[in-house]
C-alpha cells in the first residue's frame, strides 16, 4: 500500500522508543530526524515536513506524562493526530448527484494522472447509487482519448456523449450539458485533456468551461507518485478553475503518496476520493483517519469490514459458519469460502488491512491466487458425491480428475491435504468454543 514504507519506519522507530520512559528533548531529536527523512522520502512537501516536525515536537514535550501510557504510545498518538490533521481532519464528502436536476462534474489535471480512467470509475460509482449518468470527453487533443472513454462507458453501462474531435471543447461541453439536461440525466461527468499548469491557452480553456458549466465538483487528479511540485500544480489549477477537491490516483503502487499529505495542508483542498486499482470498481471515498492508521502501521480494520459487507452475502456467510461448526465441512464449502474472500479483494490487499499481518509479498499473493484457481479447477472436475466424500478418491478417480482439470495428481493430493488440515482446525475450534476458551495464539482483536 502507498504508505507502507512510511509505516515501516514509524514502527521501527516506535519500537526503539519503547525502552525510554519519557519523551525528552534528547530522545526526541533522533526520532524527529527519522521522521523527517521518512516524510521527505515519501514526497511530503518540505514546508509541510517542517511544520509537522515542529508541531509534533511541541505537543510531545508539552504533553503530560501519565503512568498508563508509554512514551512510544504517546508519540504514536501525537503523530497519528497530526497526520489526520494534515490529511484533512474530517472526511469531506463528495457532492452526490440529486434526482431531477443535472449535476456537472469536471476532472482536471496533468497528463497521465488518470483522469479518463477515473471518469469511468466515477460513472460507475454514481450508477451504483442509482443515478442516471452520462460521460463526455473534452479531450480532443490526445489521440484515441475519446475512444478510451467510450469503451469505459460501455463497461460501466452508462450513457456516452459522442464528442466530435474537430469541435472546440467549450462547445462540446455546452452541447453535452444541454443533451444531458434535456434527457433527464442526474450527472454529467466531463473528462478534460491533460495539460501543464503553465500552458496558458489550455488553462484558459478549462477556466472558461468551469465558468460556463458551473460544476458541483471540479476535481484535480494527483498521482500518488507525484513529487515536490504537486503543490504548485494544485495551486495553479485552483487559481484557474476553483477546485472543490482532489482525487489521488494509483494508490495501489508503492508510491508513498506524500504529496497527498501536503496538498490539503498547503492549499486547503480536501482529498475526496482515492483510486486503488485498474478495475472500474477501484474508487473509494478518502478517509483521513483510516489513512493515518495505515501510515502508522495500525492496519485498517474499518475498511476491511466495509469491503467484506459489500462482498459477502450475509445469509450465505451464516450458513457457512453453521456448517463449519457442525463439522459437515466439505470441499464445496471450502471453495465457497475461498471465493467469498476473493470477492473482498486480492489477498494481498486484504492482508494489508489487517493489523499485525503486514508482510505478504505480491509474489506470495499471486501464488496464493494461482493456487485458488487450481483448487477451483480440480473441484469442478469432481462429481458432486466426490466433493462431499473426498475420502473415497482412489488413484483411478484422481487420474480422471487430473485429466479433466488439466492439473496433476500431486496438485490433487496437495489440495486434499489442505482440506484435511482445515477440517481438523474447524473441529479444534468447535471444541474450544464449547469449552468457552480460545485456542492458544488466536488473535484477540
Amino acid at each position: 500500500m502507498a504508505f507502507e514504507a512510511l509505516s515501516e519506519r514509524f514502527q521501527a522507530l516506535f519500537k526503539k522508543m519503547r525502552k525510554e520512559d519519557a519523551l525528552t528533548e534528547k530522545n526526541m531529536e533522533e526520532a524527529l530526524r527519522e521522521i523527517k527523512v521518512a516524510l521527505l522520502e515519501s514526497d511530503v512537501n518540505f514546508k509541510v515536513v517542517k511544520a509537522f516536525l515542529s508541531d509534533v515536537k511541541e505537543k510531545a514535550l508539552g504533553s503530560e506524562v501519565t503512568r498508563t501510557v508509554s512514551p512510544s504510545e504517546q508519540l504514536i498518538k501525537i503523530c497519528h493526530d497530526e497526520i489526520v490533521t494534515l490529511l484533512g481532519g474530517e472526511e469531506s464528502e463528495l457532492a452526490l448527484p440529486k434526482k431531477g436536476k443535472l449535476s456537472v462534474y469536471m476532472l482536471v489535471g496533468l497528463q497521465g494522472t488518470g483522469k479518463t480512467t477515473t471518469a469511468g470509475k466515477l460513472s460507475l460509482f454514481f450508477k451504483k447509487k442509482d443515478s442516471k449518468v452520462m460521460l463526455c470527453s473534452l479531450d480532443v487533443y490526445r489521440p484515441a482519448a475519446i475512444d478510451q472513454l467510450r469503451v469505459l462507458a460501455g463497461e460501466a453501462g452508462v450513457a456516452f456523449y459522442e464528442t466530435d474531435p474537430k469541435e472546440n471543447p467549450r462547445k462540446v461541453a455546452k452541447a453535452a450539458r444541454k443533451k444531458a439536461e434535456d434527457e433527464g440525466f442526474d450527472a454529467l461527468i466531463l473528462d478534460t485533456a491533460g495539460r501543464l499548469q503553465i500552458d496558458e491557452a489550455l488553462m484558459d480553456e478549462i477556466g472558461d468551461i468551469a465558468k460556463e458549466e458551473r460544476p458541483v465538483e471540479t476535481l484535480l487528479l494527483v498521482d500518488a507518485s507525484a513529487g515536490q511540485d504537486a503543490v504548485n500544480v494544485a495551486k495553479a489549477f485552483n487559481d484557474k478553475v476553483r477546485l472543490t477537491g482532489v482525487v489521488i490516483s494509483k494508490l495501489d503502487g508503492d508510491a508513498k503518496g506524500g504529496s497527498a499529505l501536503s496538498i490539503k495542508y498547503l492549499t486547503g483542498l480536501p482529498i475526496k476520493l482515492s483510486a486503488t486499482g485498474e478495475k472500474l470498481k477501484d474508487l473509494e471515498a478518502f478517509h483521513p483517519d483510516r489513512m493515518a492508521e495505515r501510515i502508522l502501521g495500525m492496519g485498517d480494520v474499518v475498511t476491511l469490514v466495509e469491503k467484506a459487507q459489500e462482498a459477502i452475502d450475509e445469509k450465505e456467510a451464516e450458513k457457512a459458519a453453521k456448517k463449519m461448526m457442525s463439522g459437515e465441512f466439505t470441499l464445496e464449502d471450502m471453495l465457497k469460502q475461498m471465493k467469498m474472500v476473493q470477492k473482498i479483494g486480492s489477498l494481498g490487499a486484504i492482508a494489508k488491512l489487517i493489523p499485525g499481518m503486514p508482510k505478504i509479498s505480491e509474489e506470495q499473493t499471486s501464488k496464493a491466487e494461482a493456487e485458488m484457481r487450481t483448487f477451483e479447477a480440480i473441484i469442478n472436475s469432481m462429481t458432486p458425491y466426490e466433493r462431499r466424500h473426498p475420502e473415497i478418491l482412489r488413484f483411478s478417480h484422481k487420474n480422471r480428475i487430473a485429466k479433466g482439470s488439466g492439473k496433476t495428481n500431486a496438485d490433487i493430493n496437495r489440495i486434499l491435504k489442505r482440506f484435511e488440515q482445515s477440517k481438523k482446525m474447524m473441529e479444534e475450534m468447535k471444541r474450544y468454543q464449547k469449552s468457552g476458551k480460545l485456542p492458544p495464539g488466536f488473535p484477540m482483536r
Partner: protein
Amino acid sequence: MGLFSYLKDKFSKKKGEESYVKGLARSRAAFSDRLALLAKRHAKLGPDYFEELETILIESDVGVSLSLRLIDELLEKSRQNPEMTPTEANEELIDMMFVSYVEKGGSIVNELAFEPGKTTVLLMEGVNGVGKTTSIAKLAYRYKKQGKKILLAAGDTFRAGAVEQLGIWAKRLDIEIVTGKANADPSSVAFDGAKKAREGGYDLLIVDTAGRQQTKANLMAELGKMRRVIEKELPSSPIESFLVIDATTGQNGVSQAKAFSEASPVTGIVITKMDGTSKGGIILSIRDEIGAPVRFIGLGEKMEDLVEFDLDEYLHALLVGDEHE
C-alpha cells in the same frame, strides 16, 4: 577549471540548444536562481547556508539520500578550506553533482545503435500515464527522419483505447503497425511484430507495453516474457528496453527504476514532461540510485521535443541559461 566556468566557456562559443534552455526554464528558476540568491544572502558559510541549501536540493527532487550526501561532502570540504565563500561552495556543489552523474560510467552515446541487416528492437516500459505511447511516436518520428524503416507493435492490449492511440500515430507518421485484439496476450503481439520485422527487413521495431505498477509481480513477469519471445524470433538483434519516467514523479521514480530493472534489463531511461516541472533534480537522483543512463528527455509537446540527453546541455540549461542573448 571548475565545471561552472567550463560550461560558460563551452557555450560562449556555441549557443545552447534552444529546446534545453526553454524546456528547463522552470527548473532553472527553481534551482540555480535560488542558489545564486543563497550566495548573495550569505556572506559566510554557516548552518543557515547549509540548511537553506538542503531545502533547495530536496525541493528540486534531487532525492533525500543524494542531497544529504552532497551536503555532508560540502561540509567536509568547507572544513578543509575555511576561506570558502558561498559562491565557491555553490560551484563546488555543481562539480560534485556532475561527478556523481559521470562516475557511474556507461556509454555516452544515447542514440539507438543500428547494425546493417538487423532489426534493432526497442521495448518501451513504465508505470501508467508516464507518456509511453507519445514517446514512441516521437522516437519513431526521429528515426523515420533518419531514413529508417520502422515497425510499431501495439503491445498495450489492456488499457481501453491504447491500440487506437498508437494506430492514429502510425497513420499520422505513415509507419506500419502490428496490432492484436483487445485483451490479447501482449507476448503474441510482440511475436507478430518480431516476425514481421524479420521478414520485412525493418531497421527498427518499437514495442509498446501496457502501463503497470511496479509492485504487481505477475505484470512485471509479463515484460520478461515479451522480451524472451522477441529474443527467440530475432536472436541476433540488439534489444533495448527504455523505462519511461514522468519528470513530475518524486522519490517513487527510484522504486520504479529498481523494480523494472529487476524484472528485465533496462538499458536506458526516458524522462518525459520535463518542461512541466520545476524539479529538474530527478535525473540526478535516478542516476545516483540506479545507474541506468538517461537516453532521451522530453522538453515539450512538439514531435522534435524529445531530444537526446546531453549532460553538458542539461547542466548548462539548468545552471547558466542563455546569458548571451
